[in-house]
């Protein structure tokens, strides 16, 4: 039996197909999010099925998560991304206690207990300053590809503090910095530090090791060190960070099959 986890995020849709009994990943993939997200999801789903020769009828349970979870018509049920990321990360990093998930439109801090269950969580979704959106804005403003931000930030010798609490104002601040001749590497490193500072404020004193970093922004090099510096804790990037939500959703689909069976 195959089960599937679909993470309909704000920027990308991720799908994991998994053997329900062994929790072995059969296929995984992602596509950009768009207006017709249900169609995009189905297209990606069909593509993954085809790539592995899996028939639709053999996918016995589908769990959707993420910002667009309620729009996924092929899902049997929905579970929030908090629970899915917790399950996905814990599967990959069994001793994880604190999870930082920074996505395109929001960021989350999830605390797990010793058994891996969610103890509690905090979310920032009213302000883009602690999210991947900030990186997108700065990349566009500096005329660079988002994938090269980490590489550029690594060259920074003097990261410039970004004082604005809001991305819109921060963009204006960046324009001013560019006009005054500040190196773009220093601006990028400053933006990374500003995002990390927002996450640190979200966390308060509520951080326990090990800290695992997940979500699409974990793929931007330099963000992990910015977080380490802001939090004062070591930060490990989760394997396959962009897929942990979908992975968790697939595992939960498998658990639901078990529960139904028993």
């Amino acid at each position, binding site marked *: 039996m195959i089960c599937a986890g679909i993470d309909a995020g704000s920027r990308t849709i991720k799908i994991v197909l998994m053997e329900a009994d062994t929790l072995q990943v059969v296929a995984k993939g992602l596509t950009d999010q768009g207006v017709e997200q249900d169609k995009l999801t189905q297209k990606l789903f069909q593509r993954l099925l085809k790539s592995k020769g899996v028939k639709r009828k053999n996918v016995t349970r589908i769990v959707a998560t993420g*910002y667009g979870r309620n729009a996924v018509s092929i899902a049997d049920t929905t*579970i*929030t*991304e*908090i*629970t899915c990321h917790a399950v996905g990360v814990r599967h990959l990093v069994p001793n994880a206690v604190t999870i930082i998930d920074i996505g395109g439109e*929001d960021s989350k801090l999830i605390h797990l207990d010793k058994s891996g*269950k*969610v*103890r*509690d*969580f*905090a*979310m920032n*979704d*009213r302000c883009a300053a602690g999210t991947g959106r900030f990186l997108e804005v700065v990349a566009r403003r500096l005329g660079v590809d988002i994938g090269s931000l980490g590489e550029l930030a690594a060259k920074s010798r003097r990261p410039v503090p970004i004082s604005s609490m809001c991305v819109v104002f921060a963009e204006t601040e960046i324009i001013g910095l560019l006009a005054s001749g500040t190196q773009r590497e220093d601006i990028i490193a400053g933006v990374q530090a500003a995002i990390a500072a927002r996450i640190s404020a979200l966390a*308060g*004193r*509520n951080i326990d090791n090990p800290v695992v970093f997940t979500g699409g922004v974990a793929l931007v090099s330099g963000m992990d060190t910015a977080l380490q510096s802001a939090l004062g804790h070591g930060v490990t990037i989760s394997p396959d960070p962009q897929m942990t939500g979908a992975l968790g959703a697939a595992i939960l689909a498998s658990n639901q099959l078990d529960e139904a069976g028993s």
Partner: protein
Amino acid sequence: MTDTPGQITLQRWDKHFQQLQRAGVPQPSYCGPLSRHVENGDTRLLKLRYDNSAAALRLWNFLLTEEDRLHKARGDGKKLVGTMKDLGTIPVMAYSFDNLVAFYPDGAWWIPCVMELNSSLLSIADKLGIDESFCPVRAMLGAFLTGAHFPIPELLVCSVGATCDDFSAIAQRLNGLGYAILWWEIPHRRTPEADEPAVKLPGGFSAAKSQVEFVKSELARIKTALEDLAGEHLDEKKLSAGIKKANQVRSLLAELRKIVFTAPLCPLPALEMLIAEMLAIHFCSDQKETIAVLQALLEEVKTRAKAGAGFLSVDAARIFWVNPVADLQVMNLLEECGGRICGTDYLFTHALDIIPQDLPPLEALSQMALADPMVGSSADRASRISADIKSFGAEALIISRIPGASHCALEGRVIGEIVRDKLGIPVVEIEVPPLTDSIQPTLRTRLEALVETVRERRKK
């Protein structure tokens, strides 16, 4: 019990009301189809879901006709007292007089929600320099200036000192606009020194005796002003009788809270409980009718609980809720997400405690004013919340921030950390503006995630 418990839309309530009328179910004169309030501009009502009992309809109609009652009281020659910020003390005194009617102009903070921002009250406040960095209570300024909601009271009384900074600023702006305010000071409740005479307050906190004496002198000043307004001396016997009536309201609410928060199946939705609890402080401008409304509600709830009837599933996550919401729809949303309210601190838990009747009445009221969890430290408030969470068996805590409210910005994290450390339950902070429509998906995610967390924790 009027029907199988359920939650219905406004449109269904109108049909249901006709059925009640045909069946000859007696309803007070202020009752009628709820949709008439929509015609008056309360469009948010169209989006809420309501308890389907006749008792709940009466509660809603009672709430939504308060302005009519205030105008009628004025027409009948009664004197109006606008009490602000004290949350439950001055109205007890005011309702001890025969010809005074007290109400909270601060209650205008719900108008922007109920009228879905069509009231212009917030934009009036904006123009007065009190913008969105202040609590939605700033809507009160617009209500005073337009005169469209409540009659301007003969006397305005406001507590100041250990109260919200933003509210004090709003009230001072009102004062600056020419509305005379009689201020009285409530000091920050501090822990008495080791060698200092102390008083154990109702609800469990302690205060220095000197602080109680100070508050007593302040209340005596207010009492004199009320006597001048009423043209009547308020002796101890009359004030004691007023306290007794207030205690009747509090007793009814205590019983209601106990049954609703602890019954295996939730017998009354969160929204109606929020409205009912608020009656403890403002009596909706009619203390006698408040008692009748609560008695009817309690009877309904008892019948439901006895029959094992209620809403939601038995496995609904048991949530303790801190601070009232600016958008009433969020209470419906919690239930949609699989949660039920099992305990609340809507900023006035002291007004739900019984006022001592074995003390001189002014002493008793002074103690109650100082027992307000909001006038002490955040740690005090958190300890009361922790005790209530235990007694109601709640499994998680939601701290609902009111945008701009100074106490929310300061207290939320402190309360959350203390409760988390003491009880080990999940704590989530949310912010609820007057209209949540645009942020509902993210609010829903938080609430659903909390419910999932609670359910997962139940598994061994």
